[in-house]
């Protein structure tokens, strides 16, 4: 399905909506109020996290809780950054996620182009095979992948986190669906002018797919940034940990749970991905349309 026609929160659906026009101001107000209260509830964990991260442990662990912190402190952030090399964790995550995103987009878009646009013997069965593996949970390949990584001697390297993430049948599938929706005429003209397949891929298909590529890139960035189980298995040295692993270590290596400090760590872990989200939310939403509407 072409996502351009089904972009969810776009305003294009508004004018033809008869139901919305019929709402009385009072009903509208009630709905706004209800949404506002629900929104407060949903964002509460974030508010609570940020509040606690700036509080002295003695204040944070008072019961009944103090709504307004009596003293404002950066101590938890300082602790988190010194007890664990948290800045290093952030750099690791940025590096790993960036490489994974570009590697995935490159291989997925090239494969998707072949599946969507080129005829070759074995195309249909191969594509079905890709689809079939999408149903297999990641846990199935976990042990063989670990054994392979160990055999190559990659345990405890960036390569161990990055390389196994490159294969993505899922992104290949999504991009293929998108490429199929690009009109063929554009290509035919270029073909008559003698453009090679690579030229068509690089100068026609890719530029036309920027929004889809951005959406897929974000999906892949998120997946990589939040991945926990795999790094947990292949990373041992603290200097190589990505953020989620480092955050878990912040608790486990301490021996006790220091909530304000953990909240400071959580804020630092969430901030980059939140910033990415707020700036690129349009593509997140498009990504949902891309993934959600194939059924």
């Amino acid at each position, binding site marked *: 399905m072409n996502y351009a026609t089904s*972009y*969810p929160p776009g305003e294009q659906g508004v004018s033809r909506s008869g139901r*919305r026009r019929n709402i009385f101001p009072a009903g509208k107000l009630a709905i706004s109020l209800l*949404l*506002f209260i629900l929104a407060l509830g949903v964002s509460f964990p974030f508010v609570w996290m940020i509040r606690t991260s700036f509080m002295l442990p003695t204040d944070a662990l008072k019961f009944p809780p103090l709504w307004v912190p009596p003293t404002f402190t950066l101590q938890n952030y300082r602790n988190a950054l010194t007890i664990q090399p948290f800045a290093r964790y952030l750099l690791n995550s940025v590096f790993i996620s960036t490489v994974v995103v570009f590697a995935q987009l490159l291989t997925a878009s090239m494969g998707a182009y*072949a599946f969507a646009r080129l005829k070759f013997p074995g195309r249909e069965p191969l594509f079905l095979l890709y689809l079939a593996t999408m149903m297999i949970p990641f846990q199935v390949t*976990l042990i063989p992948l670990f054994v392979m990584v160990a055999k190559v001697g990659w345990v405890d390297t960036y390569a161990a986190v990055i390389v196994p993430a490159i294969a993505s049948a899922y992104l290949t599938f999504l991009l293929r669906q998108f490429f199929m929706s690009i009109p063929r005429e554009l290509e035919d003209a270029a073909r008559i002018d003698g453009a*090679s397949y690579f030229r068509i891929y690089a100068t026609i298909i890719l530029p036309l797919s920027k929004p889809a590529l951005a959406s897929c890139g974000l999906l892949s960035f998120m997946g990589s940034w939040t991945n926990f189980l795999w790094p947990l298995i292949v990373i041992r040295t603290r200097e190589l940990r990505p953020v989620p692993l480092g955050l878990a270590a912040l608790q486990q290596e301490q021996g006790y749970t220091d909530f304000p400090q953990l909240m400071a760590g959580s804020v630092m872990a969430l901030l980059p991905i939140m910033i990415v989200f707020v700036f690129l939310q349009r593509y997140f939403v498009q990504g949902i349309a891309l993934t959600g509407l194939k059924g």
Partner: protein
Amino acid sequence: MAPLAMSDGQPRSRSFFRMNQSRREALAAYAFLAPNFLAFLVLVLGPTVFSFVVGFTTWNGLGMPKWSGLQNYVRLVKDPLFVKAVRNTAIYAIEFVPLAVICALGLALLFNYKTIGISFARLLFFLPFVTDMISISFVWMFIFHLRFGILNYFLSLVDLPPQAWLGDTKWAMFSIVILSVWRWMGYYALIILASLQGVPQELYEAAKIDGAGRWKSFIKITVPLISPALFFVVTTGIISSFQVFEQMYIMTSGGPQDSTISIAMFLYQQGFLFLRMGYASAVAWVLFFIIFIVTMINWNVRGRWVYEG
């Protein structure tokens, strides 16, 4: 066939020129597919086959795997901890999926109204979905805390006794479900909303003329027309439920009394703490089998409730 000049005016070998169009296209396709297929072969397909074979062996990850036939699977069925893990995971799925879908449907219906700040509200509800599990698991651990948790404070306001949410076999799994519903409902809501906005308004007008009330037109028009989106949400919800891991790993370590140990967590323990690679591979295949069966059932009852216009 006229030999077309290929890209960039580069000289090509004669045999390449002679190649017919479809051969050339196929070769180009294989070249494009090569990196992708190589990664797929080495990182997905190969490991999948390997895992299936290892499931029939006894292996600590070093040395040579010893063939043991169906022994791992037989042992699994008799392993009380595994049975418990399957039960826990099923409970998680049974609580999570309906709750998340109902909340998401409600939200989507609200999102469909044009009111002040609606796009900001949508953004806010979507925010939990872009978090990493570890951070928010810590946040919710603090909220659920027996002594300092804000949840118990809210309970005390209405004179309810405090609960040891994550430390009580009665509540631990449900607490994890709450966290998961919070994280996923905004995402599911946007998927349902996309479908909701595709429902033609004329249908509602027509229903109104026929004297149908709001509830009736919701059941008779809205639900059938958005059922493909609901189906998608239910399916992905089930699949993700059966793989649940991080929440338990951080918040409860599977406790109390193994009441929150999930299949994925059992697999992690067997494979990477006890180095029973054969046994853990068998677990992975049982997990796949369960997901497969549930998805098939879901797919087959699809015809009964999913409207495909």
